[in-house]
């Protein structure tokens, strides 16, 4: 790993630019050879649709991880926001209101996370663990474990509809990705987040408004979570309190596999897309091959290890 190519481009740069894409391409080719159904158009469309929720969550996690934070709450907040939205849709029949309620619920938890982290200096891991517990309790208290079905077609369209050949949720996902890209690449807050993740003390010293940027990241993650919750419930035509459990881990995996460092400062959303697609094709391929999800978890675990090992090694080599 230590002996890279000489020249202008460092190994770290090379990996962060192409490494993950290379892994994706290799996996893709191998899977296509083993299972010819894999490359059918409908299947690839399925894969993209299946990763929508994780990818949108990953957008939120991307901002968190880049600034050296992490969010454990999305899995449960997503269920709460989505179920609340479905409930609202059922009771009022007003799609607009349902959307607002779902997004507001996500935002609320984002704001709680942000407040805990910035105003009270609670470590993000603990703050979001706490809010996850709150969301979990809230959803059980609210629903009593019951689900809300028979949602109208207008709501279900959000998760199941098509515009031409493209699934509607995929379009939403692309919009969220574009917004995330713009925030990270072109706005002062995006640059602040990188600076904070790289060295918080230095960022603070150079006049960056650390708390404001962190708070924004949390709130943005909350909205992403709310949106993901609505799309997931709409996809199932049902508000499901038990859904989404553990999805934050898939989202974090996507971000990490995409080369974002757990310690912050490094990462980009384009690679995260590839990361979540890798998770998507692995799960999809294993379902096609009738391999149980226990093994999917093992493979994903190995993938995380490999991604982080490479990341660390590359970083070491790069600092020499």
């Amino acid at each position, binding site marked *: 790993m230590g002996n890279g190519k000489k020249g202008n481009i460092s190994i770290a740069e090379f990996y962060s630019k192409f490494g993950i894409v290379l892994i994706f391409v290799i996996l893709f080719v191998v899977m296509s050879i083993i*299972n010819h*159904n894999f490359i*059918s158009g*409908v*299947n690839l469309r*399925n894969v993209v649709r*299946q990763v929508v929720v994780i990818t949108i969550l990953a957008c939120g996690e991307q901002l968190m991880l880049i600034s050296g934070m992490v969010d*454990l709450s999305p*899995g*449960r907040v997503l269920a709460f926001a989505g179920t609340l939205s479905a409930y609202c849709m059922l009771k009022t029949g007003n799609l607009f209101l349902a959307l607002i309620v779902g997004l507001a619920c996500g935002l609320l938890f984002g704001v709680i996370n942000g407040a805990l982290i910035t105003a009270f200096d609670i470590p993000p891991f603990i703050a979001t663990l706490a809010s*996850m517990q709150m969301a*979990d309790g809230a959803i*059980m*208290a609210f629903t*009593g*474990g*019951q*689900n809300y*079905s*028979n949602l109208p077609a207008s709501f279900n369209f959000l998760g*199941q509809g098509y515009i031409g050949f493209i699934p509607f949720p995929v379009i939403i996902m692309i919009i969220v990705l574009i917004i995330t890209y713009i925030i990270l690449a072109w706005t002062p807050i995006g640059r602040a987040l990188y600076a904070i993740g790289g060295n918080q003390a230095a960022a603070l010293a150079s006049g960056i408004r650390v708390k404001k940027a962190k708070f924004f990241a949390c709130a943005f993650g909350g909205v992403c979570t709310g949106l993901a919750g609505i799309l*997931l419930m709409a*996809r*199932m*035509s*049902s508000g*499901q309190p*038990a*859904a*989404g*459990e*553990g999805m934050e*881990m*898939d989202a974090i*995996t996507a971000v990490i596999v995409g080369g974002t460092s757990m310690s912050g400062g490094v990462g980009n959303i384009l690679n995260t897309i590839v990361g979540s697609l890798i998770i998507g094709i692995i*799960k*999809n391929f294993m*379902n*096609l091959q*009738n391999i*149980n*999800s*226990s093994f999917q*978890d093992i493979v*994903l*675990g190995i993938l*995380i290890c490999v991604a982080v090992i490479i990341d660390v090694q590359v970083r070491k080599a790069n600092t020499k």
Partner: protein
Amino acid sequence: MKKKLLAMGLAGIMTLSIFGCSGGSGTEETTSDTSTAQENTQTDDEKESSADETASADSGEMEDWEKELAEQYEVSGDEEYVWGYVAQSFTDTFCSRVQKAMEDYVAQNFPNVTLNVGDGKQEVNTHIELAENFITQGVDCLIVTASDSNGEVVICDMAKEAGIPFVVVNSDIACDPMDHWFVGSDHYVSGHLQGEYLVENVDDSETVNVCYLGGTDGFTHTTLRRQGFYDALDEAGYNYKALADLEGEYLRDRGMEITEDWLIQYGEDIDVIVAANDEMGMGALNAIQAAGMSDIIVCGIDANDDAKEAVKAGTFGCTVFQNAEGQGKWGAIAAYAASQGKDFATLDIPYELVTADNLDQYN
């Protein structure tokens, strides 16, 4: 690893609720005996007053399996007892129905019994604490709806040591069967019923291609449901082929995702998708409908509201009903027998197959 650990910790409530009360969230009152006991003045064949109202209510409503049990146990009585009931949780829909059925039945038929109920909050620890409290109070009988079959073995030991009869309702605890009463349903049967449905309703002159959506691995009932299903097919010599068998974790979105992938891999070849609960079955149905297909038969377990609607609409082949009211009622009867010092026994509350033919009984 991290994912597994966290998932295990974080998934606590969900999985516990699956284990503790694998009954889904149907809320309809069924043709249960508790409701008839309350509305005993109806123009049924008997008009007796409260003196032997249970006998009358039961003889009118009792199903065959109940009659046999009723010969062995007193279904009403006047003895004074105090019972402690550790409910699985107050929020779980299915368990709440069990609890309500028990409370109603006790109030009607064991008027001198005081039933104290504690909210177990789906936590093993809370269950143990509540059980300790009841034992300290010296109740005549301890009743528990368990959250975890292994985690609560300690309650068995405590009750045994204190010499207090112990009744487990809904989900069994992994202690010696001779140490406690068990009132609940045999998960093996629920899977078996799904198999029987296929044998009787799906023509196997050509090989029937079956895909199975299993529940979360690691739970006893997941294994039993799967085993019961395949056993029923094998026993009948059914001509089938298991195309695929994957873990859907009892979740609708997992069931949906897996079915989408199956439709890609096997497409029109799939004849039947059998799921270990209705949620996964509904997920499969969503995927099938989204793909514009309609000739795949889907089966589930739980008799949830939307599954029953799907059975009505003909998009679901069958679901299986778990009798919450029966569990509550017979839980009370078992507790009464236990308080009288009768020998430990297991009371099986049968699962019932729900198809288009008998759907009316479950609404």
